[in-house]
């Protein structure tokens, strides 16, 4: 009984180490092949359009409402201390340092990350990835490398968009609805935000781009190796769910780690 339990723990540990190792090899192979010739410019543009351009609507929507709710909550908190004039600072700093990068990454995970995992998972179970190998085409280079470049381009830009829209959302509730002077709101935004805040948010968005793309693409790519969620379509569904859940958890874990390192 005890021996069996120890054996199971050992097997589980070996399985996890193998899994993590596989993901790192996948990541390093993909990054290496970004620079191998010929460069995959058209594929990068195509994926930037899919990850970036097609995510703009959802980013604008979440950005505006996040900013609006921050404006609303911030106003009623600050007014207790007679500091409602600081609303611009509160909204801008919260968005640029924390909520912008995190919520953008989570929204891209939900929209593009899940699609990546499902698409690659289907490619795996329908032998399209094997077909690439038989054609002497490196599947990691073909599938993952353009996507990671596209994410590295898209994540910071979408985060910047989210931040700007969010600050506008805060302006809508703070100034237009609750009567804070618009000039003061804008002044507080420009006065309180320093370059270090923007750089911090930028670094976070870059790290999230790598984390989300690696997790989502690797979950799809290794669909055939997971056995817990079933095979075929069920396997793809399990991989997609795992990709989204793991990405979201890791976004928050990395967010804490980067914040700790930057402060």
């Amino acid at each position, binding site marked *: 009984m005890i021996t069996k339990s120890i054996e199971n723990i050992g097997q589980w540990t070996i399985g996890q180490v193998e899994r993590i190792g596989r993901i790192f090899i996948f990541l390093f192979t993909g990054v290496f092949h970004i620079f191998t010739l010929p460069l995959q410019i058209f594929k990068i543009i195509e994926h930037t359009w899919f990850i970036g351009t097609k995510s703009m609507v959802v980013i604008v929507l979440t950005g505006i409402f996040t900013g609006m709710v921050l404006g609303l909550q911030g106003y009623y908190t600050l007014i207790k201390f007679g500091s409602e004039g600081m609303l611009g600072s509160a909204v801008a700093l919260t968005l640029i340092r924390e909520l912008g990068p995190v919520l953008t990454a989570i929204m891209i995970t939900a929209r593009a990350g899940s699609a990546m995992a499902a*698409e690659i998972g*289907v*490619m795996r179970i*329908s*032998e*399209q990835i*094997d*077909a690439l*190998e*038989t*054609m*002497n*085409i490196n599947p990691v280079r*073909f599938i993952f490398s353009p996507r990671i470049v596209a994410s590295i381009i898209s994540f910071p830009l979408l985060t910047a968009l989210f931040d700007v829209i969010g600050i506008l959302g805060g302006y809508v509730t703070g100034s237009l609805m609750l009567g804070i002077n618009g000039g003061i709101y804008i002044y507080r935004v420009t006065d309180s935000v320093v370059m270090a805040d923007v750089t911090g948010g930028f670094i976070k968005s870059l790290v999230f781009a790598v984390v989300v793309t690696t997790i989502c693409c690797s979950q799809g790519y290794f669909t055939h190796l997971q056995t817990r969620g079933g095979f075929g379509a069920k396997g793809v569904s399990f991989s997609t769910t795992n990709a989204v859940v793991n990405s979201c958890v890791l976004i928050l874990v990395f967010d804490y780690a980067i914040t700790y390192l930057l402060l």
Partner: protein
Amino acid sequence: MKAPLIKFVDVKKSFGNNYVIKGVNLSIYEDEITVIIGKSGSGKSVLLKHIIGLIHQDSGKVIFRGEDIASMSRKNRKEFKRNFSYMFQENALFDSMTIYENIALPLTETSLFSKQEIKKKVQMRMEQLEIQGTSNKYPAQLSGGMKKRVALARALITEPSIVLFDEPTTGLDPVRKNGVHAMIKSYQEMFGFTAVVVSHEIPDIFQIAQRVAMIEKGKIIFQGSVEDIMAYDSNDEVGRFINGDGDFME
């Protein structure tokens, strides 16, 4: 007697506790159509995937032109793979690409041909396989038989010297099955490649086979000519299988 192009020497493969290939010895000869038969789950496709390196054996050797594939250098292995094309059971066409893009893919990704040269080659293959007019369609818009032709066009676009067919007639009606068999035969004659065909379409597949190997329970229990296998006693294991004897399945 000529030397085999591909040779399996005591190849064994298991997936966990499931021993699929239990010591296969098999020779495949150049410019011939070799057919590997056996009942479902007997390890035919696994055997085929060993040739191109999609699956690696636990022990034993797969030898190509006298060289062990496992001990090939990275460069040699890449060169070795250039000789091959693989036609998958379910075609493995890229759903999100057009038919033209599917066929052109091996060239656009691995060759230095110009766009014009690639276009010319793809058009030529499409004409030869009678799938002109489908360039801008997607695989989902084609019939099963057309998809097979597209898969074959893609397999032949690099002018390989060896084409591996994994159950090429799966899911087709009897008329289309015979059509695909005839297609393999005629294109093998036209382009002069070595073909290895995994199939359980017996006896139809014998019409195109020049050499037959039968795998059962992970071992090759017969290899030889069509005449030899047809001459087997119907009470024998091989004979019972080719005669479709239900008792064989037990």
